[in-house]
């Protein structure tokens, strides 16, 4: 299925456009990569900070409900930012990415990361103090935060390893 998507992108106009832009606009690759990094910083300052807060590791004075309400927009803008800055590279060289095992790992981590984050925020906003009504809920919140934290850090690290997949999968 992935190679089907890759072939479909290869034959599309999107690929031509992305290729043209990345080769002809001076400095566009590092600029897009920097926007990608800045969007990751927005995710770190929102999603990851909320996870660290739930785990009791950071910003102890900030209230969880208020944090989620305030940072939700930052989180989803960060996600939109990484998507819109990253997609050009995938469009330009679809086979390089879809056939890359690290790229596959990155997206296998990203999809559950998005789902866990969305569900956690939805539940938090539905009822004030939801996660602190019982010791059991508090434990569940901590587990979800830890899973979310590990998934997001995994996504970021896997992203950087895409260019080095041979170290993992074809050593020497």
């Amino acid at each position, binding site marked *: 299925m992935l190679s089907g998507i890759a072939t479909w992108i290869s034959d599309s106009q999107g690929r031509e456009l992305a290729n043209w832009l990345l080769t002809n606009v001076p400095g566009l690759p590092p600029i897009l990569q920097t926007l990608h990094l800045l969007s990751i910083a927005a995710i770190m300052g929102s999603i990851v900070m909320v996870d660290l807060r739930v785990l009791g590791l950071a910003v102890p004075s900030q209230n969880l409900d208020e944090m989620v309400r305030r940072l939700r927009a930052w989180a989803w803008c960060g996600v939109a930012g990484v998507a819109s800055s990253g997609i050009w590279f995938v469009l330009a060289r679809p086979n390089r990415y879809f056939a890359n095992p690290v790229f596959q790992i990155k997206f296998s981590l990203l999809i559950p990361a998005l789902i866990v984050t969305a569900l956690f925020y939805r539940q938090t906003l539905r009822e004030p103090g939801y996660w602190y009504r019982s010791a059991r809920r508090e434990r569940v919140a901590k587990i979800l935060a830890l899973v979310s934290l590990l998934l997001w850090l995994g996504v970021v690290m896997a992203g950087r390893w895409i260019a080095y997949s041979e*170290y993992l999968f074809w050593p020497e």
Partner: protein
Amino acid sequence: MLNEFWLWLEYLPIAGHIGATWWFPLMESLHVVSITLMLGAILMLDLRVLGLAASGYTVSRMSRELVPWSAAAFVVATLTGTAMFITRASAHVLNPAFQIKMLLILVAGINIAIFHFRIFRTVSHWDISTKAPASARMVAGASLFLWCGAMLAGRWVGHVI
């Protein structure tokens, strides 16, 4: 003489080992995690000082809770960055993107010192306000600008060599 020093770094066994193995991507991915975490924490504090976010919390509390995170992330970024630097030290010092990056980090460091040792002293007067003194807002704006610039220059380093 300095040139010999850069070459000496490159010929260290550890530098060769990092450059030739999975250590390099490991350092690079940890560098990305630490710089984005650092910028995320800095962003929250700067936007609070600018009066644009988290107005329900005092500036001093935000600073107390966020600065340790950005400082720790900076230490990790420096260690992982040095590990990558020594693999091609003599080329990096000649790379204009690398030189600009170091300059921006230096200026950002001075900017932080100005904030914490001068401007922050009067924080009790504007701690709860969303309208910090112009000098504080200027430093916060400069901080965002400098760190974003350092990130762009850093990303550019890899496109020059």
